[in-house]
């Protein structure tokens, strides 16, 4: 009975979830693609969007994969795989699983071998994380309507809307930048320190340099690769620094 976590049923469930995610995504891509053609967006631009997005996604996706593996020792590989393909992220799923096991008197550091425990973990994860999907069908349209009306009123508010749109995006970026500059979260999350700041700055420098090459030197083909390359470059810097700096310097954190 101990292989129920990686049994045929779990793989079948994973297959179903993955199929759903892919079909849903394709549906929206096809609808948007057709509409874009109708309103006269060049197909080249759309193709470039696909290429850019695939490249952009690789590094974060590999790090999500790593979190699947982190949870695999206790929960088997399939459940974390399912959970991180829909809604889930490491923090959510770890906390949910921990709480479920805690309520049963177990911990996440040992393998779950009981179907009852496992089922409790699954239900906790699912019920805990589904709320956005209940809110969205009710409020998404309303939120967009309110926003659209505010933007459309006149030229001044539409210019303001544009700036506030950019400011919203920057707000999200800023949270993670600040995290890399000053946060000291619970392990295993990394605290801000020499390494995180170096990686942050390297990514900025690489982006600016590559962008300059692509735009000013007219290497058009480079454009979709600018961000992915800068990311990989900065991640490479992290590897180099850990290899060549003394551990106490590389491991220096601000607090």
């Amino acid at each position, binding site marked *: 009975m101990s292989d129920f976590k990686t049994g045929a049923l779990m793989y079948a469930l994973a297959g179903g979830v993955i199929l759903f995610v892919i079909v849903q995504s394709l549906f*929206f891509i096809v609808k948007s693609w057709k509409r874009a053609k109708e309103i006269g967006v060049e197909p080249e631009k759309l193709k470039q969007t696909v290429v850019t997005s695939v490249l952009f996604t690789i590094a974060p996706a590999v790090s999500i994969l790593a979190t699947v593996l982190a949870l695999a020792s206790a929960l088997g590989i399939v459940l974390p795989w399912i959970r991180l393909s829909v809604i889930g992220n490491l923090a959510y799923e770890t906390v949910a699983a921990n709480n479920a096991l805690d309520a049963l008197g177990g911990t996440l550091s040992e393998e779950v071998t009981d179907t009852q425990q496992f089922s409790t973990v699954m239900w906790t994860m699912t019920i805990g994380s589904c709320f956005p*999907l209940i809110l969205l069908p009710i409020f998404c349209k309303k939120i967009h309507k309110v*926003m659209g009306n505010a933007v459309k009123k006149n030229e001044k508010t539409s210019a303001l809307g544009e700036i506030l749109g950019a400011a919203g995006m920057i707000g999200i970026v800023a949270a993670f930048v600040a995290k890399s500059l000053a946060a000291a979260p619970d392990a295993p999350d990394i605290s801000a320190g020499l390494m995180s700041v170096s990686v942050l700055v390297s*990514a900025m420098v690489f982006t600016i340099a590559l962008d300059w090459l692509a735009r000013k030197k007219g290497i058009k083909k480079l454009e979709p690769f600018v961000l992915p390359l800068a*990311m990989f470059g900065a991640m490479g810097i992290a590897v180099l620094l850990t290899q060549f700096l003394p551990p106490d310097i590389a491991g220096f954190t601000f607090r």
Partner: protein
Amino acid sequence: MKTFTDKMHTYGRIWTVTALAVLYAVPLVFSIYYNVFPQFSTLLKALAAVIPIYWATAIVEVITYTPLLGAGGAYLSFVTGNIANLKLPCAMNAMNSADVKATSEEGELISTIAIGTSAITTTVIIAVGVLAFAPVLPYITAEGSVIKPAFEYVVPALFGALLASYFAKHWRLTIAPIFAGVIAYIFAPKLPVGTMIFVTIVASLVAAGILFKVKYSKQFASEKE
């Protein structure tokens, strides 16, 4: 006549309800197959610790991300998750490189295509990774592996790169939210990043509003002269 956006909302609602059914099918099928349903009291105890935080975060996330994601993008993102650290940055990057505005219909379409592509790519990478590399991957990400640091620092790498591309266009707008975020972290170093996003977005919007007002009134004054 229904506009394209109206249609997207209708499709989105149908897909989201279907997604909920698919999500709940996973524990339900497992429980029926093995005939093990969780004890109600245990489940309640586990959920009591999880729901207040998660459901509050959900409300904040829906309010914060929905205006930034287009209609199609919003429905897609909330099903597949990893919004702040992947879907939204991916959409921003695509709109930047296609040189379209987030508020235009073109921007909305580009963002939806980017998010859909990102969702498929992530799903495929995780599936391939689990099936093909599961035996090897623990070594790659294990303690002491040479390339482990690379994946520990995905966040600063990703957001450093994004910051640089925003810095080029709107450097004035970047100062206040980063400053606010750093200050907040100095007082609350363990604050979850989901909560921090709320802080920095508010700081960013307020500062942008003030900057806009100053700039616009200056423009207005120079037009009058």
